[in-house]
């Protein structure tokens, strides 16, 4: 369960202050997939970074399973599995070593790690690449490794930044199946995407972000009702106000 309210974040740049996120608020429930949809540069990654405590919000609160992310970042990170925008897989380590490294950083013992690696490898269909050094992995193989690494400790909450970015059709389908599996296990899954079809196909709840702020949120049905559009696609275009960058 992740509750976000009134998030603000500004960056100082050479040309002045950029308000990347203003007044973002939503809740993501356990056993649901919540999608953050928005065009490139809408503030999705910045919002997620505040969720996984990499950045401090200027204002607003993030609560993960009831724990405040600013006050107790270490405890919050314990209950989170994070796939950042940058996958950052260690290329001189094998996929297995990459996953085990993060397991150890989460304080897991070696038997549990080994058991989890086997389970994740099966779920993500990566048995054939498990003991290869990740140098030369395809985008999909790297993403799989990074996802396995992110959820090796069986977190209650999973945050994925553009998980299907750069994946081919088959891998994308497998990834969707995997996210549904995480949901069915009762986890709270948040993922961001700029591809509308992606969000429409997967999400129980959708949060539409444009220019740093939430412009609409709800279940797909609620969104259709709010906008009076029968087609979800038209509904998105209506709330965002442009068609820019929403089609994969």
């Amino acid at each position: 369960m992740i509750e976000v309210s009134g998030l603000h974040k500004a960056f100082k740049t050479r040309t002045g202050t950029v308000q990347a996120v203003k007044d973002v608020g939503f809740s993501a429930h356990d056993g649901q997939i919540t999608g953050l949809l928005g065009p490139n540069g809408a503030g999705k990654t910045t919002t997620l970074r505040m969720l996984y405590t990499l950045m401090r919000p200027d204002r607003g609160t993030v609560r993960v399973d009831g724990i405040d992310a600013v006050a107790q970042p270490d405890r919050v990170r314990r209950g989170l599995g994070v796939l950042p925008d940058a996958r950052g897989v260690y290329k001189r380590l094998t996929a297995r070593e990459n996953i085990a490294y993060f397991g150890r950083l989460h304080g897991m013992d070696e038997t549990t790690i080994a058991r989890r690696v086997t389970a994740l490898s099966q779920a993500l269909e990566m048995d054939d690449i498990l003991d290869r050094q990740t140098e030369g992995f395809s985008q999909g193989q790297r993403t799989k490794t990074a996802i396995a690494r992110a959820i090796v400790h069986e977190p209650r909450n999973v945050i994925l930044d553009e998980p299907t970015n750069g994946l081919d059709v088959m891998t994308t389908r497998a990834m969707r199946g995997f996210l549904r599996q995480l949901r069915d296990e009762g986890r709270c899954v948040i993922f961001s995407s700029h591809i509308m079809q992606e969000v429409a196909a997967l999400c129980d709840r959708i949060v539409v972000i444009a220019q740093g702020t939430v412009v609409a949120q709800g279940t797909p049905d609620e969104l259709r009702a709010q906008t009076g559009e029968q087609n979800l696609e038209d509904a998105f275009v209506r709330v965002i106000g442009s068609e820019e960058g929403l089609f994969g």
Partner: protein
Amino acid sequence: MKSMFVVMNKELLDLARDRRTVLISLLMGPLLIVGLVVGMGSVMQKKFSTQMQKTLEVPVIGAEHAPNLVDWLRRSNIEPMPAPEDAAAAIAAQDEDVILRIAPDYADNWRRGKPALVEILHDSTRDDSRIPVTRVMAVLQGYGQQVGALRLLARGIDPAVGMPVMVAQTDLSTPSSQVGQALAFLPYFLIMSAFVGGAYLVIDATAGERERQSLEPLLATPASRAAIMSGKILAACVFGVFSLVLMLAAFKLAFWLAPGNTRVDVSLLAMSKLLLILAPTLLFGTSLLTVISASVKSVKEAQSYMSILFLLPMLPTFYLLISPVKNQLWMLAVPFLAQNQMIMKVLRGEPLGLQEWVFYLVVGLAIAGVLWFIAARMYHKERLAVSA
């Protein structure tokens, strides 16, 4: 604590996979040291002995004016040669190390009992001419003294009358301190390898990890940032100690192979002392590099600091060259100067007091500790993780 060792193990494994880098960085220094010590030692010794013993060929201008002197030179193992056209040019072009010029009025002055002029032409800034000039000088002085004594005797005077003061030199330098003088570059070599030996590892572990964007997922784990950073520093230190041990082993081997230089103290005890002296430098270097790597935008920017870091350990050596000062306790608080002094003392086999050891180690570790603390603060910056 546990995360720190997890990070350390991972960094070492990651490094070990990069076999070529490891081999080059571990073996280059030791090979260079052996080559340098053995090569330089034997070249120096060979040159010294040949310059001292072999027949010295010296061009003599106006040899016809002083046939007796020329004879004397020949008997003293100096072969007079025909003089070149332009003596000054020959010296400048380094064709000749030393040239003798006998004045045309030599014979006249000689006969009248006046001092007859013999000039030694050489370039004092050239190290190569030092030994030949000394030899020629000694031979000419011997000739002058002998003839002077004979003249006094011929006049019925005791030659001792002409020598009111007898000057004698007693060199109190010990053989080992002489060796130390010749090896002034060695402390620098050791300090350098301790200080920046693990540089690429540190830069890679922080700035490189950031550039490859793997720092963000790492910092999203529950491991504390201080533990992650310390693990990386620790990995660099472990690698550094390993590399220093190889270096010191090479050192020992080099002096064992090198001709004549056996008086440098290369016992196991001395080597362990050197390792202890270099330990704070290692921590100092890796912490400093971590601070730099965490504050810059890219690996490239971090590497641009390297040339300055290479110069840093040389500064005290330069300072000591210009103004050699007596060893004092405060010097052991100045980074690099302290290491230089301590290493020299160990190599010369001079004793180091308990007070010096404690003072040196406490100050050295304190400086490294402060840098470590700054590095930990840098790791808490938001900007660090967010590179892309």
